[in-house]
């Protein structure tokens, strides 16, 4: 079955026809060309596909596209503004919060959601916020540091 949906993606309003079984991840990547959310498992176990849906982190592989009608969605493509990187992106670059980079989008999105809730998270809170984001390169320590530094820089 086809559905007409309208939503805001990275600040822009879009309308689209999607199929009932299509996931948000699929629509973002294949139809809208927003490839920062990655496919890592498609079963909600890895967080590589994380996006912000109305300000909350979701695994976009577990959300049906038909359900996001009216929602406000943010992907990593929408993080930087006016040619300036988001402080999180800068910090990840400066503090080696990225190795192979496959998990990076999911990490940034989870970090963004965390900083929206808590302006200066403790290490413990950061660890908790990232528990659903797998990084096979094991870059967690530098990812946590990147987030910490970014949160301090914002003050």
């Amino acid at each position, binding site marked *: 079955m086809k559905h007409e949906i309208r939503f805001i993606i990275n600040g822009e309003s879009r309308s689209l026809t999607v199929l009932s079984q299509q996931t948000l991840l699929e629509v973002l990547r294949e139809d809208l060309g927003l490839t920062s959310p990655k496919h890592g498992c498609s079963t909600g176990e890895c967080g590589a596909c994380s996006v912000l849906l109305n300000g909350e982190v979701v695994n976009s592989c577990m959300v049906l596209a038909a359900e996001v009608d009216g929602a406000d969605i943010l992907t990593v493509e929408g993080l930087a503004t006016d040619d300036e*990187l988001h402080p999180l992106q800068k910090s990840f670059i400066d503090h080696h919060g990225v190795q192979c980079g496959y998990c990076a989008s999911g990490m940034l999105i989870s970090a963004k959601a965390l900083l929206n809730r808590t302006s200066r998270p403790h290490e413990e809170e950061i660890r908790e916020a990232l528990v659903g984001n797998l990084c096979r390169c094991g870059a967690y320590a530098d990812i946590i540091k990147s987030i910490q530094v970014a949160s301090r820089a914002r003050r």
Partner: protein
Amino acid sequence: MISRKPHVIGKPFPLIEAQRKLTGVTCYAGDEKINPDMLHARILFSERPRARFWLRNLDAARNHPGVVALLTGRDVDGRMGHTVADRKLLAVDEALYAGQPLAVIAAETPEIAAEALALIQVDYEDLPATLSIEESLSPGAPAVHPDFMSYRGAEKLNAEPERNIAHALTFVRGDVDQGFAEADVILERTYTAAHLQHAPMETHGGVAQRQPDGSVTMWMHVQAPFLQRSIIAGALGMSPEKIRIITGCVGGSFGGKVFVSIEALLAAIALHTDGRPVRLLLTREEEFKGVFMAPAMRAHIKMGAKQDGRITAIEATYDWDVGASVDAAIFHLQAVTLAGTGPYAIPNVSVRTNAVYTNLLPAAPLRGLGVAQVHWAIEQHVAELAEILNMTALNLRQWNLVKGGDHLFPNFVMHASGLESCGVLAVDAIGWRPETPRPAEENAADASVRPGVGRGMALGWSPIILSDQCGSSVTIRFDRERLCDVVVDGVDIGQGLYAFVTQVISFELNIPVEWITVEPTDTANYAPDWEASYHNLLWSMGHALLRATGEMKKQILSYVAKVWGEPISNLDIVDGEVVSYASRRKLPLLSLLEEGMGEEKSPPSFSVTATYRPSNVDGSIDSLLQSFASTAYAAEVQVNPETGDLTILQLAAAADVGHALNPESVRAQIKGAMIQSVSFTLLEEMVFENGVPISTDFMKYPIATTADMPLQLHPIVVEVPQRSGPYGARDLSHHVQVGAAPAIANAIYRAVGVRIRDLPITAQRIYDALQEKRARESAVR
């Protein structure tokens, strides 16, 4: 952030690719050529370890609307393999392992491909299979590859196919019988390590397209595109120039994307379609059960020592369960044989390593090439031996440690190394001061810490062996359009290769990093028989870069020198300008490229290609061995004696990298390896049920999350220069993990008095060992 100045080696250098990765721009396998017209491939995998099989309903699948091509082993009958062609492209009549491809389909949509796949019915008739090292080596076991000797490349291996030994290597020094006769104490133990998964976050996949001339172009994010080109060509009976592989950044490989798994099938199906691009992306489940795992190990170690702590002999056998295919045999066994004694200079040695076939998923070595598993055995063994000798493990290690100048192998004399410093620094970092030898207590529970808490350490040393038959090549072009454009034959798998290339060129040519662009790796840029190195790239690529930049600098300077009428020795490049120290003239390189100079007004362009190929290639045990890299791990753990639950309070890793060219990046790599090691040590095990993998997702095969991190991490960089390495540096990606698992096991022993000799160290295993210990103690009482 990125300086406008030329880069200085040894100073921080942010990864160039990082910005692209963090803005979602970097292209990975699944991002290639997304286009509504492309076709989608799916593979049908065997579900039995060894069986005759029949594919029914093929016509229904073929005629399913939207199916463009369907291939079975009857349509394309190719064999493939790196050393020996022991794998079929698609099974014919008999499947050798669960996960072996039986058919491949291309269709208009992924859904149609899946539907068509589901239409095929597979009937199996089970055949006798062997599912473990023990089974395979026991007399009368079914041979996994009875026709081995007829396979292409079989003669390259030292195989005994009827005993399921795919390849074996031995190293003997002195006389072990004599050595054991001299020993006061002899200790014999068996250690095991489970099958692991590489489990990159990016699953295998890519896009392939048939070209009008009958060749195929593939966009595949793999670690070894050149090796894959030749394997795929061999499998399809094509010449290598008909296969072009373009690659970019890889979303994790760890050894799992070196050899060909599903890539040849993608090429095959693309050749049977209408020329539209075909995409194949494995699901996570398929990634777990349909590509490669890493070999399991069984080690048997016998060591003899004098009462004073001198180890007189070692006899070690390392058996590796490589599943039904042995792609990496030569290389893998060479590494574990060379590392087989651990970092000890023992006068009498006999090391044997066997690659053992089973009817399980093919194995490809994980990062570290098995050297970490060798140390799992050796570094626990040494600790236990020390206890029997009533001395500290540290003293026993120091007594027997390999030293610079030791003539270890026929053509290899040990160089200066940071082995000892690594040990001292790692132990120091966790606040452990075992320098006052209190023999008895030192090995029993640690009196200086709380009950249930223990500290342990382990050393590591890993051979740095270059890829067989391979080299590294780099082309630098300098012209007005592209400024400094670089083509390399290596791949960035997350280790920061492109950053390294940029860093060296910026430093050597003394030009800003912004001028430099590293192109995605493309096999079309090289001769069809070129084999590029796919690991230890710092070494081979580093040497190629030094040659290329030296030559480039000479070209530029001699051009300018000629116009200026000065000897080239007066000239240099400084901050992107050619300067003459004699005449004080200056010429910005940019204006040279833009406007040219002197009489000839047409601007010049420069181009240099340089290659590095190791020279010490022969059949000997130390062929291609460049050096040994040292590491040490120290761990402080807390064990709950009731449940066996383990917490790593502190983990320190010291790695001798020779010279840290980019110190923060080196530390980041060490930290990453530490966390990965914790994951391998405590969490990971590929589980099979009757030969069928049941660890097929991240719930059943958990990998470390932020919740599993040690509470404190201490990465330590040690720099004892490697004289023959570029800038005195050594590769680090393989060896940084070596020593983690035994350090943790040694710490557990000191915390609660039980030895775990099987990896992974699960809470259940600790609990069982504690129960057994209690039973033993109460029986004594």
